[in-house]
């Protein structure tokens, strides 16, 4: 046995290029998975920590409508004996909202440190004295300042450094377009995690800044663990007034995390793609390593080495390769993760909630995943060639023609396998109902089908071309004939490339279709000339509102003929937070709304009479139909609203509820307006009116005043940002495929160096030899592209009709254009030509004599 191992190691060491390329491919595949893991886990953890940073000991929270709960409820809970509640819950009030300091958006959290301290102390069941985590945030500052100094705030030391603030520096913060003076009275040390996106202040200060006097965002509650605590919570829930309700703290945290579930699933699927591609790469590398040693193995077998010994040695090589690849992948993934986390957290901030990720975490499960992925991929990739070489009889093993013969049979078989995979993909997609996971399974089946199709197409086309060009040029004939006859070496690399290209085409079409649908939707729905919105993050935050006096002034401005207005808030449904848009449209405004279900006349009449209209994602997610009722938490307690229609909306992947403004004001004590759209008289200069508006707002409130076109551009740029990660990931997968191709071609060329040398001795110039190789590789690239185009279109359809629908619930119109295939063309041809370069260069400068000395 030792001699077998020695032979194996010597072989691997003698062919380092092959080894290195296979390892790089595997490392990139594993690394992509790890990077995505790191990015999503870090964002999730940062968010969880920020939730726990304030009143982390809370088991429940009392929440209300968009305006929160009345502060008097807190007073009653604190000062009245809660008759019938067996264990005393501990309460702590919170007022929160978003503010900006310079360019940075922070969550303003107003607390009562005394109440928070007692809530925290209740966790340890100690006297309140022993644990005052919440007040610890005062550390470094003068506690008197906390209560008495106007504008006193505390933030993480990290954040203060980023903003260039030190203790006792005064600065301005911006709430809803209004500037307020603030002063940093203390910082929270960096070893206390979760405060990075928070600005902590006294509850009184928060109420004043956010202009929510008399209201609390929520009341955090802690009841003891166990049955007594649960009973207390249950009793407490029944004693709350209409419009307030008790929620579990855990479920509140989960809701926010769940919001990003579809998003992270997509990321993970994209990272799987890179690994899948690398699996084919390993297959190629191992089978080549085996082919190269076919003589050696044949001799060993003839000398009495058993099949299982050969199998063991080949699989062991793969396992070592897998482990090393996994280790390198972990390293690479950690590096990539730091970059990716930025992209992920930015997308989360754009779409979901404010989170600051200053720390990346590598989940332990990811390390295991990396090892399994590396090992599994390598062994799975090596299985086929290992079985093959072990299974062949000693003499046959010596002959390459046998292998090529097998490859030909294999290519034929693969053709049928491809058909089966495609059919399976269709079947899975059609029968799996709403499962997003099954949707991705169908996607991978389809991509595998594309992969298995490519070698067969390659062979067919190569043979056809060899025949067709044979009369014109012997070199061309030689080139194509050679390609057709060398499937054992190049087939897998081409398959990998085909799969990556198919994925790229699919994603390109999907993104482009989405973009076009979004553009068309924006153009149809955004008809007003000027849009005015209250600034600030968090689309559904109640503190976003436009000064009422300013509204009247703007409406009276010359040139304004009509207007629409809306109030956007966020409702906490059992299914998670959902935005509610209360709208009053301009004359004829309903014509601009796209109903996907419902007759416009019937729907909008019902809407004016109090019914609601919901967006596609919401309808899909909650499985709601027209005619159903949706219960919303109003200020008068839960109320059921009839659904009169379903409309198209790409603004929110969680779904949106649309309600008429008068109806909203009947059920919520809220007269505020978040956004306005103004229609101008014909001929009126848009810039002039916008300037008038700015003059009106100056000194009163900072407003976003944008033209229709600006707002559309803004929406489109957010859209583009969202898909940056997708692009990064598919380029990674493509990179793995390109490496695979280079590695395969290199192997092939090295192997037939002698062949080429003979050709050269027969008169082929060195330039001709290089050209021969470039023609061959370029041809392979074109074949990969040709096979990938139909598969890519199918992939796009699957992404649009199955994946997007299941993940987000919206419908996208398919848009096809040549543009979408450009990347794929670029990728396949460039990587193929690049892959051919080194072998071509090598061949051109090889000494003929050296190569054919044996002959």
């Amino acid at each position, binding site marked *: 046995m030792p001699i077998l191992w020695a032979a194996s190691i010597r072989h691997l060491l003698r062919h380092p290029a092959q080894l290195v390329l296979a390892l790089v491919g595997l490392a990139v595949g594993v690394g992509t998975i790890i990077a995505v893991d790191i990015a999503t886990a870090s964002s999730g953890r940062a968010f969880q920590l920020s939730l726990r940073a304030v009143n982390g000991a809370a088991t429940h929270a009392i929440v209300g409508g968009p305006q929160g709960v009345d*502060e008097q409820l807190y007073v009653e809970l*604190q000062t009245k004996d809660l008759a019938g509640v067996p264990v005393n819950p501990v309460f702590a009030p919170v007022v929160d909202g978003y503010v900006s300091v310079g360019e940075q958006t922070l969550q303003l959290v107003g607390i009562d440190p005394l109440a928070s301290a007692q809530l925290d102390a209740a966790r340890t069941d100690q006297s309140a*004295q022993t644990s*005052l985590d919440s*007040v610890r945030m005062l550390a470094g500052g003068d506690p008197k300042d906390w209560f008495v100094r106007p504008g006193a705030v505390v933030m993480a030391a990290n954040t203060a450094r980023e903003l260039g603030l030190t203790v006792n520096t005064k600065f301005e913060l911006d709430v809803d377009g209004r500037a307020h003076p603030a002063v940093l009275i203390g910082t929270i040390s960096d070893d206390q995690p979760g405060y990075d996106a928070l600005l902590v202040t006294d509850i009184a200060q928060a109420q*004043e800044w956010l202009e929510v006097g008399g209201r609390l965002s929520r009341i955090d509650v802690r009841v003891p663990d166990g049955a007594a605590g649960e009973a207390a919570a249950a009793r407490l829930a029944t004693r709350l007034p209409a419009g307030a309700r008790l929620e579990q703290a855990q479920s509140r945290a989960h809701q926010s995390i769940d919001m990003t579930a579809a998003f992270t699933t997509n990321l993970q699927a994209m990272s799987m793609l890179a690994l899948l591609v690398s699996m084919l790469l390993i297959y190629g590398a191992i089978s080549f390593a085996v082919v190269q040693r076919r003589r050696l193995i044949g001799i060993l077998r003839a000398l009495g080495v058993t099949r299982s010994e050969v199998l063991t040695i080949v699989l062991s090589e793969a396992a070592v390769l897998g482990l090393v690849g996994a280790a390198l992948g972990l390293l690479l993934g950690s590096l990539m993760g730091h970059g990716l986390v930025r992209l992920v957290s930015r997308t989360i901030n754009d779409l979901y909630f404010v989170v600051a990720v200053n720390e990346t975490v590598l989940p332990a499960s990811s390390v295991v995943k990396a090892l399994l992925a590396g090992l599994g991929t390598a062994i799975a990739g090596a299985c086929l060639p290992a079985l093959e070489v072990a299974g062949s009889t000693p003499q046959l093993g010596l002959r390459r023609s046998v292998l090529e013969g097998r490859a030909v049979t294999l290519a034929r078989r693969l053709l049928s396998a491809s058909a089966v995979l495609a059919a399976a993909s269709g079947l899975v997609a059609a029968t799996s109902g709403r499962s997003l996971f099954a949707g991705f399974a169908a996607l991978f089946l389809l991509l595998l089908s594309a992969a298995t199709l490519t070698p067969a197409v390659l062979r067919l086309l190569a043979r056809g071309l060899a025949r067709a060009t044979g009369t014109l040029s012997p070199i061309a004939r030689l080139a194509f004939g050679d390609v057709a006859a060398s499937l054992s070496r190049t087939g897998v690399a081409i398959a990998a490339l085909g799969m990556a290209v198919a994925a790229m085409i699919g994603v390109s079409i999907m993104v482009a279709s989405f973009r076009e649908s979004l553009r068309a939707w924006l153009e149809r729905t955004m008809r007003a000339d000027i849009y005015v919105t209250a600034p600030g993050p968090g689309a559904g935050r109640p503190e976003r509102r436009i000064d009422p006096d300013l509204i009247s002034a703007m409406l009276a401005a010359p040139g304004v003929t009509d207007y629409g207005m809306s109030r956007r808030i966020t409702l906490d449904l059992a299914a998670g937070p959902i935005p509610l848009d209360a709208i009053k449209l301009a004359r004829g405004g309903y014509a601009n709304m796209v109903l996907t279900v419902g007759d416009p006349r019937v729907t909008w009449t019902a809407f004016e009479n109090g019914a609601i209209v919901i967006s596609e994602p919401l309808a899909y997610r909650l499985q709601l139909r027209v005619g159903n009722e949706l219960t919303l938490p109003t200020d008068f307690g839960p109320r059921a609203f009839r659904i009169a229609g379903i409309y198209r909306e790409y603004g929110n992947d969680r779904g949106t509820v649309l309600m008429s403004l008068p109806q909203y004001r009947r059920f919520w004590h809220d007269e505020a307006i978040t956004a306005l759209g103004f229609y101008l008289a014909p001929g009126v200069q848009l810039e002039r009116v916008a300037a008038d508006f700015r003059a009106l707002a100056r000194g009163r409130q900072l407003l976003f005043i944008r033209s229709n076109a600006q707002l559309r551009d803004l929406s489109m740029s957010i859209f583009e940002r969202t898909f940056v990660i997708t692009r990064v990931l598919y380029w990674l997968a493509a990179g793995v495929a390109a490496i695979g191709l280079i590695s395969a071609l290199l192997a092939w060329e090295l192997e037939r160096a002698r062949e080429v040398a003979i050709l050269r001795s027969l008169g082929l110039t060195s330039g001709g030899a290089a050209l021969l190789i470039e023609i061959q590789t370029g041809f392979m690239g074109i074949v990969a592209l040709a096979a990938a185009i139909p598969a890519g279109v199918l992939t796009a359809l699957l992404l649009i009709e199955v994946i997007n629908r299941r993940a987000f619930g919206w419908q996208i119109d398919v848009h096809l254009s040549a543009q979408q295939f450009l990347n794929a063309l670029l990728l396949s041809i460039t990587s193929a030509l690049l892959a051919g370069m080194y072998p071509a260069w090598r061949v051109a400068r090889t000494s003929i004599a050296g190569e054919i000395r044996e002959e």
Partner: protein
Amino acid sequence: MRLAAAIVFSALICRAAAAGPIADLDVLHEDGSEGFAHALQPREFTFPQDNGPHPAFRHEWWYVTGNLDAVSGERFGFELTFFRLALAPPAGAIPGAAASASASRWRTRQIYTAHFAITDVARGEFRFAQKYSRAALGLAGAQADPFRVWLDDWTLGVDSAAPGAGWRLHAQGQDYDLTLEAEPLLPPVLNGEHGLSRKSDDPGTASYYYSIPRIAVRGRILRAGRSFEVHGLAWLDREWGSGALGKAQQGWDWFALQLADGSALMFYALRDRDGRRDPHSAGTWIDREGRARALSADQVRIDVMDHWNSPRGGRYPSRWRLQAPAVGLDVEVRPALANQELGTHPRYWEGAVDVSGMQGSVRTEGRGYVELVGYGE
């Protein structure tokens, strides 16, 4: 003599800031009392006004301790204390603060904290609880007429739901829930020099101090769902000021003894850092008719007979012989339970005691409360 409260209070606010500078709020050793009124001269006390808060002063407390007997034979002791602390003088509007129209109702310059402790002699258990709140939105506060001081649902004074009735006292903590009707048996007794209690030579350290040494209480204790009818005798201490403790002072031992014949003794022994009794220690003797007589440091001799080691660290005196020849008193004072330490920060011992010995030539007995401050580290 309840400066203990002040330490506790100052510490609680800045407990958090254990590593940070807390000097500004350390009521005991701090001079930042500009803008506050000071107890410099004896003053005219008027009731019920002086039962209520004195916001011109920086700190103030209402301190009730008492011994209770259940109809079923069990014995209990209790402490319920409310402290008020002003973070800033009640001057005009805070410069730069939001206009008063939009000012939050949570804005405050005063904070309240309260301690509640129960000594369950039969079970040998001692429990304490603590609350804090800002003086805003009616969450905590004090008023003179009708008298009431409260923090959350812990209250002392006239029940707002039943005006016209007597005082009511209510608090609940871990496992224990106390509700008592309270009726003062004596008018307020002014301690020190007509109510001006000097703690050191520095005039700024004085406070105004009065007591109601005998208050009849009756009500119930709920212990883990079981109800006990109780009655007994309580003591109210009231003190307010703006000054700090003298720099050399370490702590004190405070005695409030209620004797069987209706007389009572209050004495606080201030200890300097070198362990010696401070000459500003003082007390008051109240005879059975309620007449007060001031006692100076050298008129009361206290010998420690025993010690108790706290499991939290620190060694407390635990049994005393107290002699006041001027009023013919020679008694032994024994804790009803060794461990009556509140694990607050800083820690202090406040517990029910038994008294027995001679009053003149007559054997006497009694009960009371003792407070020991400055022993836990």
